[in-house]
């Protein structure tokens, strides 16, 4: 009987502790930002990573070659000195001379040298590394079909280096933006086993933060790097990245205040956040990614079999008016309304609306019109001659599989809408959600009729990937058009934007007419930030681009700013 009171107290104390531990009260963390990542990073090596999350986190660890900004008003990338102090275009852009700063140091005190930069490109160009970023060397010098490191990159002295390119165009500087790796760490390993190198998982930092700890699928902990000389040690004591794959949980943690920053916020959650969570600030990024359906314009199977000789129109999508009809038949607006609202816009082509100067404003997105679609299909000879509700022509039914990747709610939603819309005009679509691995393999080998996918555009316009040679892996439609090829060449080599814009606009008009893809919509990512986090400077370049300058303020004082 006497024990009951103390026991109750103990239980209450335990409960109190339990609930207490929910909050963020631990010592020494007041000046640490907590960021939620939607996926785990692959590793910390910029030349071995493919995911956006991985490259965002790398802003913490590597000195950037240039201080980049994207001028939204003019729609162009602006280069300011970074690790590269000065640069000079030589030989009408076919060579670039870089002068590096001499005072930028790795964590261990070694200077970030031209050797490091050259070594990074050596790895990039080495086939046995199989770097996903190897296209950075594509325009440099090749001998016998192999990347020629020494001819491409010359080191003139301990701060000066010279890059050589096969052709000159104003965008070459872009291919020098990859951050350098410390040669000292990696030099002794055979390139083919670089993926197994421990430094990929425990990097030597040269950026504002240094690596502390990484618990897979849970968290990454960085502390301010006091040895950082450029751009200087982070203002925060540290940053903790929490890996939270569930969008719901991520949002909940942001609301609870247990994380300071997360993205992407789902558009459907925006209203609630704005109304009930005044301590959270939302930032919208410019549209850098779009979704599309790639239709196989040519018979890929035949093309593969003949080793690239036979180019025959695809049995279904080989005709322009059929592709136009498909675009008419798909209610893209309804998907946009349901899933993106004002955080998206219907796409006309694949040049981002960010690049204002290059956009052909005369083109309007195709409206949703099943009637128009049906009449175009009828003109092309597609009719329901047998009464089963499915179009057919010469005994072939209009029936195909649409591939897309699992794990993306918006894409799954879009796929279902597409299937339903096309059924209304008499087309049978089989939905094939695939794991990313399997989908990429199919896209690599062009083994599909139609694929629904998304694409993050680069900060410079380069349509050659998509609309150039059929063999180009990103030419997912197998699109072939001589005028387009010509325009790409003219545009890439144009001396200024005005000239380039002229060619890009014509290119867009052709693509709009031909509809090799059905361009769905541009997506603006939303970043949710707790107001206590200041100076986030979130930009087109990356959410974490300015992470070294982030500051934590008093949450209460910020309310008045609203």
């Amino acid at each position: 009987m006497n024990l009951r009171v103390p026991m109750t107290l103990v239980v209450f104390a335990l409960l109190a502790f339990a609930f207490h531990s929910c909050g963020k009260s631990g010592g020494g963390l007041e000046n640490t930002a907590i960021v939620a990542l939607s996926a785990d990073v692959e590793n910390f090596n910029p030349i071995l990573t493919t995911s956006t999350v991985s490259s965002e986190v790398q802003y913490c660890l590597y000195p950037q070659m240039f201080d980049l900004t994207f001028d939204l008003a003019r729609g162009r990338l602006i280069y300011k000195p970074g690790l590269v102090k000065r640069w000079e275009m030589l030989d009408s852009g076919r060579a670039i001379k870089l002068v590096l700063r001499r005072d930028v140091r790795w964590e261990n005190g070694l200077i970030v040298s031209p050797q490091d930069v050259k070594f990074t490109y050596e790895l990039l160009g080495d086939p046995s590394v199989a770097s996903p970023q190897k296209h950075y060397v594509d325009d440099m010098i090749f001998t016998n079909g192999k990347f020629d490191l020494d001819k491409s990159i010359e080191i003139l002295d301990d701060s000066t280096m010279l890059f050589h390119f096969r052709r000159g165009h104003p965008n070459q500087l872009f291919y020098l933006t990859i951050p350098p790796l410390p040669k000292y760490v990696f030099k002794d390993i055979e390139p083919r086993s670089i993926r197994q190198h421990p430094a990929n998982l425990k990097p030597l930092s040269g950026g504002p933060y240094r690596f502390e700890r990484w618990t897979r699928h849970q968290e990454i902990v960085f502390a301010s790097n006091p040895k950082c000389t450029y751009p200087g040690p982070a203002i925060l004591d540290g940053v903790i990245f929490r890996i939270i794959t569930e969008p719901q949980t991520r949002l909940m943690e942001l609301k609870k205040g247990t994380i300071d920053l997360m993205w992407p916020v789902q558009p459907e959650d925006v209203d609630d956040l704005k109304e009930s969570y005044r301590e959270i600030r939302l930032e919208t990024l410019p549209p850098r990614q779009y979704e599309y359906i790639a239709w196989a314009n040519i018979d890929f199977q035949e093309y593969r079999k003949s080793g690239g000789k036979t180019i025959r129109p695809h049995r279904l999508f080989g005709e322009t008016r059929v592709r136009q009809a498909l675009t008419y038949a798909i209610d893209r607006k309804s998907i946009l309304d349901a899933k993106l609202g004002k955080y998206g816009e219907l796409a006309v082509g694949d040049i981002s609306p960010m690049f204002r100067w290059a956009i052909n404003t005369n083109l309007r997105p195709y409206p949703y019109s099943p009637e128009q679609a049906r009449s175009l299909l009828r003109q092309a000879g597609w009719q329901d001659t047998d009464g089963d509700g499915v179009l057919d022509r010469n005994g072939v039914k209009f029936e195909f599989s649409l591939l897309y990747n699992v794990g993306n709610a918006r894409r799954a939603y879009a796929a279902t809408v597409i299937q339903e819309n096309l059924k209304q005009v008499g087309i049978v679509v089989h939905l094939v959600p695939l794991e990313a691995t399997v989908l990429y393999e199919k896209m690599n080998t062009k083994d599909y009729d139609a694929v629904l996918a998304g694409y993050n555009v680069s900060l410079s316009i380069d349509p050659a990937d998509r609309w150039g040679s059929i063999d180009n892996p990103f030419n997912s439609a197998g699109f072939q058009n001589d005028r387009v090829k010509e325009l790409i060449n003219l545009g890439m080599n144009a001396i200024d934007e005005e000239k380039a814009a002229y060619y890009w606009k014509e290119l867009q008009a052709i693509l709009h007419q031909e509809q090799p893809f059905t361009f769905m919509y541009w997506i603006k990512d939303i970043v949710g930030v707790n107001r206590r986090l200041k100076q986030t400077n979130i930009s087109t370049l990356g959410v974490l681009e300015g992470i070294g300058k982030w500051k934590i303020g008093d949450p209460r004082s910020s309310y008045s700013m609203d």
Partner: protein
Amino acid sequence: MRYILRRIASAIPLLFGLVTVTFIIVHLAPGDPTALFIDRDADPSYAQNLKTALGLDQPLHIQYFRWLKQVATGDFGFSFTKNAPVSDLLAEAVPRTLLLSGSALAVNFLMGIAIGIFTALRRGTRFDRWVNTIALFMYSMPEFWLGLMLIFAFSLAIPIFPASGCKSPLAEYLPWYEYILDVLQHLVLPVVVLGVASAAATARYVRGSMLDVIQQDYIRTARAKGLGEISVIGKHALRNALIPVVTLFGLSFPFLLGGAVIVETVFAWPGMGKMTVDAIFTRDYPMIIATTLVSGTMVIAGNLLADILYALIDPRIRLGGEG
């Protein structure tokens, strides 16, 4: 002792078969694991190089023997998708799964046995019927759905328990007791799904076994001798009633791991189950083989353990057991 040794010896070919079957299944499947980390830009020679680097271009039997040799030396290979040695990843994940399934197992049996005995003694009462009904429903419930409902109720509607993960982000910075409490808090919902749900089934089983025993002659004799009820139940009945429960205990191992796959996925518990699901989706061969091997080993060990415990408790098995 001989019996135990024989049982252990018979488990070895099982393990071997397990490894082989997994290896065969995984390598028969279509799909190319290199596609994930090669940019679509890469020319085919890059893919080929990568395959060489990862040893994927060698004939199957060579890959198999190479892998067997590695396993024997405790090296499970290198995870393609996570860029880390599989053994490191396992070392991180296994303890977490053991924490989860161990707690669940404890809850399962402690609760199950207690309720089972209680209902057996009060059989036919309303309480007994309720427990029986609840057990039936628990047994018939999809774990993932129960998990989702608990998340909805206790993480979203009334936010008292975290919905995912195995600890709060900054838990390491807390004093040790708070850290433990934090982990316990994360454990609650998954353990309820894994443990409480199966406790209902255990209770039913214990109840049946207890009822069998209570009706035996020697219990009647004990009662007739005038022993107290507590002594009768506690000393005589319980011991015998729990013998079959030991078997159940061993056989619960695979169930908890199999169940943990789903529960870990629902609660984003970063253990073996979630890792296996991830590995399966990304075709991470060494990872799949390793997780299957580890969990298969646990199943075999569980069975072995059950047999051995059984033999220790019930000498009849040792004498008459022919395998």
